């Protein structure tokens, strides 16, 4: 991935190892390699879908990018600026351009705060607006996400799950961010509310020229929203590229297995679901060679010894697998 001024975000060889302490002196005995050398570029206006089984490092990756947790190694360039070398003030300035919407808005919204204060908080704290300016802005944001402005004087519990997710989106958009991370934005709401939220996210993206990183277990949601997708396994990207192409024709054995495991309404026979043997290995001691070799139906000798590099196999696709060549 080369330098491109159209990139809003460039992640370079990012690593996050969580230390595991044990023993009397709480000595660090080993590390959870949650994110282990991820490089990826995101263009302005793009939606990047991030998929992979639970624990593969999706949330850790975005949290590290957002600087919510300290990186172990690597670089993140946001809008041309190297984030990890910024001083506190510059970092705070830049942070308002990157916002996050979490899975369950019930837990991310303070239950004792009025909606007006929840949405108004970043306007107050980060933008230093006066309370006179904040109220009309909050009302405008509420209407933008399809809620009535009377909602400003209610508490989160007075709203349904889908409505709470709208409040979380309004808050995330309050400071006019450039990049919004959506970590499982619809997995705690029903299908009808989900359709509305996805529609809203699509419209807001167009209107405000937003870039999204979307994390979801629901592949249909990812397929619906994403321009590009990145498939992660045990802290690494195994396949990356054009979303349509990958959904139509996944190349990496792990992507193939992941897609074949998920039934949808067109899956008429249980035989159409393919299962992957075994569990995800521990991220503390990931397998030698290709990390997927313990479960890969296509593994060959070299897979046990040598780690495959993420390489271009065609114009629009990168994979990390010994049996895939350009």
């Amino acid at each position, binding site marked *: 991935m080369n330098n491109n001024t159209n990139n809003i975000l460039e992640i370079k060889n990012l690593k996050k190892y969580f230390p595991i302490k044990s023993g009397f002196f709480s000595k660090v005995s080993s590390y959870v390699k949650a994110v282990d050398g991820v490089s990826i570029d995101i263009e302005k206006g793009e939606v990047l879908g991030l998929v992979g089984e639970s624990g593969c490092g999706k949330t850790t990756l975005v949290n590290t990018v957002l600087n919510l947790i300290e990186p172990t190694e690597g670089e993140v360039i946001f809008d041309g600026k190297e984030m990890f070398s910024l001083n506190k003030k510059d970092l705070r300035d830049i942070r308002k351009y990157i916002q996050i919407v979490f899975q369950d808005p019930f837990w991310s919204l303070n239950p004792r705060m009025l909606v007006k204060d929840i949405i108004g908080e970043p306007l107050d704290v980060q933008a230093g607006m006066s309370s006179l300016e904040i109220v009309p802005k909050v009302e405008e944001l509420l209407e933008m996400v399809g809620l009535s402005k009377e909602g400003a004087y209610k508490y989160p519990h007075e709203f349904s799950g889908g409505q709470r997710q709208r409040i979380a989106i309004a808050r995330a958009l309050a400071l006019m961010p450039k990049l919004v991370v959506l970590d499982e934005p619809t997995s705690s709401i*029903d299908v009808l509310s*989900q*359709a*509305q939220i996805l529609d809203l996210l699509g419209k807001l993206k167009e209107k405000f020229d937003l870039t999204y990183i979307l994390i979801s*277990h629901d592949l249909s949601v990812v397929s619906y929203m994403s321009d590009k997708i990145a498939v992660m396994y045990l802290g690494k990207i195994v396949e990356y590229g054009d979303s349509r192409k990958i*959904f139509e024709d996944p190349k990496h054995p792990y992507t193939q297995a992941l897609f074949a*495991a998920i*039934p949808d*309404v067109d*899956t008429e026979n249980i035989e159409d679901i393919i299962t992957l043997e075994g569990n995800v290995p521990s991220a503390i001691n990931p397998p030698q060679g290709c990390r997927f070799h313990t479960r890969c139906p296509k593994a060959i000798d070299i897979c046990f010894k040598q780690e495959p590099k993420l390489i271009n196999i065609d114009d629009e696709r990168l994979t990390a697998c010994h049996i895939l060549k350009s």
Partner: protein
Amino acid sequence: MSEKPYLHIKNLKINFKSFEGEKTIINIDEIKINKGEAYGIIGESGTGKTVLALSILQLLEMPPGKIVNGQILLEGEDLLKKTQKQMQREIRGKKISMIFQDPMSTLNPVFTVGEQMIKVIIENQKLNKKEAYRKAVEMINIVKLPDAERVMDKYPHELSGGQRQRVIIALALSCGAEFIIADEPTRNLDVTIQAGILKLIKELQRNLKVTVLFIANNPGLISATCDNAGVLYKGEIIEKGTTKEILKNPQHPYTFTLLNAIPKNKDTKIDLSKVIPPNDGEEIKEGCIYYNRCLKKQENCKKEQKLINVKDTHYVKCSLYKEGVNNEQ
């Protein structure tokens, strides 16, 4: 199709009492499940799927729950007429086993898998400890957990979520359950683990002729596993039939809406005007349960609705339908 259903739920109405008064949570005209089939219940969160499952086993907390009327016939015998003692002695964990969303609600954290299985087996069958051990190992093999003997020595917390669900299925099988109620058994599992559990449940139904009631909020899970299914909306079965009919040719406006709201891919935009019913707030006391969100409502809908047979085994609870007429949407 005149065979007697294995499980026959008739006019079941369950209310819950609260400060605001009594509320009907389940109001089911009829569900028929044949012996040895896998039957699916599709429904969104809060529609009463778990309440229905618990009521079959008389595990519903009463109060606040209250059975207003109805019958739950298991091979012709009304389970609702049985005492808690009879349920415990004859039905629960014997004939019918339930698999919950959270496996830890069934497993005891302080005993090993082996201890729990052997206890259940000895309670249910006239076997000595050694025979019970062998039987337990056999069941763990059936649910495809590798290293059965090592699994026997493990505590539940030492197993993954998928492994725990398998242990629970092994437990159900080891006491000879012929009917398994699976209430979103894969909700908290990863998709690759989910696939294995779905296959296992299907195999038990096909090969061991276990009858299965499979509850899910994701229609895709029902599609792959169940022969027949019903759609639950606010406690009412509003459509039922073969899984294929329901998913490929949905008739009730709600089912149609639900299926069309599921995203497919980038090139198939969800048509919100077809999908999203604005809740116009007009609540009606009687009549159709879907009235206030329905895009097709008419005057007739304010009358009480009945399940109408539109084709073969396909039933719809909606005033747009007449017996034997299948409207294409």
